[in-house]
């Protein structure tokens, strides 16, 4: 590194340290120690809203008394999910302009193709060659949608755009990561659930339900021991059935919880010590967004793979 480069690094490091010190003084912790600002701090206290807020003023007024009305309301999470959707579609649109397979892919096309290949290989490694083609679109879309929602929510425009009240504080944000809206993970969880059950049914036919209603052992039971075994089997089947529905809940709250926690974490760190301090947490949130997308898509994939596998009860009935 040249001398001027070293100097530049020094200046930058000094700037970062200065910014950190300034942030510490101005932030909530500094205000508490040094007693700054007449309101007890220079920064407005972060407000955490679990339900999304409406974008339009009239909806917001309605929502003031007793939550969102039972009709379509354009909330900030829905708006940002639309933006994510548009961004994804635009990226894919421009990545597939070059239809000539003989040319080596470049730039955006190369990137998107690399991502597609990585997801494709991942699915193939779990589900095997035969299913990959048909599972791919949904799994890939879940992954891309979740990860883009999470990552785009880290853009600075998300917390900074909004509608202010008379004190100049933002009361309604224009955009909020869609993952922090319970309805988005729930929608994905429902899609995943339907997808899994559909593939199970389609591949195994009605015998798919044999996994949940296991009367086979009871009907074949000999003596009290066999009877006991039969009841146990039925109970296990019902547990399986229950777990199938519990997945919807776990899917929903895993993603919702992680996204909301990340949002709150960033909000709080930026409130406590603005500027430099929250940077590592942004890095963390990048990781969390990726991991949650991977988990959502990966679990759906695993559940489908399990659902299409012929289960023991089914086999026993066939062979026995």
């Amino acid at each position, binding site marked *: 590194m040249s001398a001027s480069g070293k100097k530049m690094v020094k200046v930058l490091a000094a700037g970062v340290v200065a910014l950190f010190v300034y942030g510490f003084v101005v932030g909530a912790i500094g205000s508490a120690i040094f007693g700054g600002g007449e309101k007890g701090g220079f920064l407005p206290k972060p407000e955490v809203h679990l*339900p999304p807020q409406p974008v339009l003023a009239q909806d917001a007024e309605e929502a003031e008394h007793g939550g969102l009305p039972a009709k379509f309301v354009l909330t900030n999470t829905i708006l940002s999910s639309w933006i994510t959707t548009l961004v994804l579609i635009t990226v894919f649109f421009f990545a597939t302009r070059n239809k000539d397979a003989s040319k080596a892919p470049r730039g955006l096309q190369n990137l998107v193709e690399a991502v597609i290949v990585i997801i494709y290989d991942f699915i193939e490694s779990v589900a095997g060659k035969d299913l990959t083609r048909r599972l791919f679109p949904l799994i890939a879309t879940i992954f891309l949608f979740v990860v883009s929602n999470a990552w785009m929510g880290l853009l600075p425009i998300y917390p900074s755009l909004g509608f202010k009240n008379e004190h100049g504080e933002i009361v309604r944000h224009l955009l909020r990561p869609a993952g922090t809206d*319970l*309805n988005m993970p729930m929608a994905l969880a429902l899609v995943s659930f339907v997808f899994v059950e559909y593939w199970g049914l389609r591949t195994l036919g009605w015998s798919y339900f044999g996994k949940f209603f296991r009367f086979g052992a009871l009907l074949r039971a000999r003596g009290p021991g066999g009877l006991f075994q039969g009841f146990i089997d039925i109970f296990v089947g019902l547990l399986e059935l229950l777990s199938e529905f519990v997945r919807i809940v776990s899917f929903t709250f895993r993603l919702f919880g992680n996204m909301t926690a990340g949002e709150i974490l960033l909000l709080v760190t930026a409130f406590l010590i603005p500027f430099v301090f929250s940077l590592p947490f942004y890095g963390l949130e990048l990781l969390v967004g990726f991991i949650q997308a991977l988990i959502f898509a990966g679990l759906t994939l695993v559940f489908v793979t399990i659902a299409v596998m012929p289960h023991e009860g089914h086999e026993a009935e066939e062979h026995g």
Partner: protein
Amino acid sequence: MDKLGFHWPSLVVYLVNFSILLGVLYAVGYKPILRMLDQRSQRIRESLEQAERIQKESAERQAAMQIQLQEARREGQALIEQARQAAEQYREDEREKARAQASAFVERARADIQRERDNAIEEVRSQFADLAITAAERVIRRSLDRDAHKELIDQVLEESSQFRRES
């Protein structure tokens, strides 16, 4: 649930949104990209196969050429051998012919000589007869002289032997 923000119209909106995204991404993204990837891997596989085929073909061709070359060499060798044999044969023939000619010539010469000699002998013989007759005439004409006879005969014989020595 309301406190957490559950709102079924939003849920429906997200479901619709996700379905649209899935559909559009499938049509705009996955399908063309996967097709292109397939095509590309197909192309790569094909060109690899082609390269392999060409390599094999060239090896085969080289082997064939080698064989052809060897054959040509062998043929050339054979041709040379043949030519040499032909030349040998020709020389042999010529020599044979020359020998035959020479011997024929000698034979003829010998025959000629023989004939000449025979002729000469014949001639001598006839002359000898004439000589004998002449001698007899002379004997008869002189007659009755024993000594004369003897002298005469001796003279003839002398003459004839002289003649024979000459011939």
